[in-house]
């Protein structure tokens, strides 16, 4: 159907260094590693769940990953992605039993590390003015599709029914709108271009 991301390239020494420091309890290194992985964890969760449940799965995976990093269970940077994916799959499979484990993990790590577990939810947003300017340049229909998909978290089927489109059409509109937004968001605000 579509191409996968480009094949893996060797992991930089930076990640290897971060892993070693995280295993020694360095909080900044932990945070840097989690920041790299959090978007992939969130994508994994959003494929399976919506709304608060997806957030909860992200947090659970992050906690387990944090525990593993601190225990030095991942020593090879090239294995970190696969390790995190393994955690995601295990946690997703084991959601019921996870409730107890989650409480224990939060008790052990959550209080102290709430900021690092939830980090990324408040920072690294796009400039609101630029984003609004870019959204305004989408058609009303494309903006509605993007709103349903990324704000409401609706499935393509639900979006298709709500907007009287086919699912295939929703998919094409999403792709085109995201490409347009990505290009637009890389530019400065048009009014500030010399």
């Amino acid at each position, binding site marked *: *159907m*579509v*191409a*996968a*991301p*480009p*094949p*893996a*390239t060797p*992991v*930089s020494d930076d990640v290897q260094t971060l892993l070693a420091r995280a295993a020694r309890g360095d909080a900044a290194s932990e945070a840097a590693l989690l*920041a*790299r*992985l959090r*978007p*992939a964890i*969130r*994508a*994994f969760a959003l*494929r399976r769940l919506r709304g608060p449940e997806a957030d909860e799965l992200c947090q659970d995976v992050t906690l387990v990953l944090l525990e593993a990093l601190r225990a030095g269970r991942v020593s090879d940077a090239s294995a*970190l*992605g*696969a390790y*995190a*994916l393994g955690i*995601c799959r295990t946690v997703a499979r084991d959601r019921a039993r996870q409730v107890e484990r989650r409480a224990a993990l939060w008790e052990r790590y959550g209080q102290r590390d709430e900021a690092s577990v939830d980090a*990324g*939810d408040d920072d*690294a*947003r*796009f400039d*609101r*003015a630029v984003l*609004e*300017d870019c*959204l*305004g*340049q989408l*058609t*009303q*229909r494309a*903006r509605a599709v*993007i*709103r349903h998909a*990324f*704000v409401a978290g609706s*499935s*393509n089927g639900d979006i298709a029914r709500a907007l009287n489109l086919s*699912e295939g059409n929703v*998919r094409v509109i*999403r*792709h085109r709108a*995201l*490409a347009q*937004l*990505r290009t637009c*968001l890389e530019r400065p*605000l*048009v*009014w500030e271009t010399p």
Partner: protein
Amino acid sequence: MSTEPLDALDDYVSGAMDDDEAERFEAALFDSAVQEGAASAAAWLDRFRRSAVDLAARGTFDITYTLAEAQALIASSPLDILVIDAGAPPTTRETLERLEHHDLALFSFPVDLSGVAHVDLELGTVDHPCVVVLPDVKVDRDENRVLLCCEGELARRSLQQPFVTTVVAVEGQNRRVLGRFHHSDVRLG
């Protein structure tokens, strides 16, 4: 990065990608997250999603409103909203001074919308009146108004130049100007 990984990621997240392909995709997804960090497609999409949710919560995702929707936003929003009636003078300087103290700006453009099917907003400057087109915007036909809601920061940064908004009726290939509003014509509401 090309947009192709973004398309694949969107198919993955939305469920358009089948499970077998998704399982293969996941390995590459996590590897690219480790290797590329903030430059990965996943990081971009995550940042976009959070930004879109934030904008929607503030009321500026939808750009244009009906009068009833605008009134509901004003009544319910914790943000300070400056209503700007684009009818008569005075000046941009005063607008900018007022905008310094507001989170959002709500511009109200009075135009005759009778018989008009679609409306574009053209934003520009006096010398270049059509720099950006907001296509097929929502309008309030009963009130004969186009209500444009934007971040105060966007308004402040845009109005640093002699800004012009043109309301255009779109009828097939024909474009008819319904109103042109120079921001020296802005009256503070």
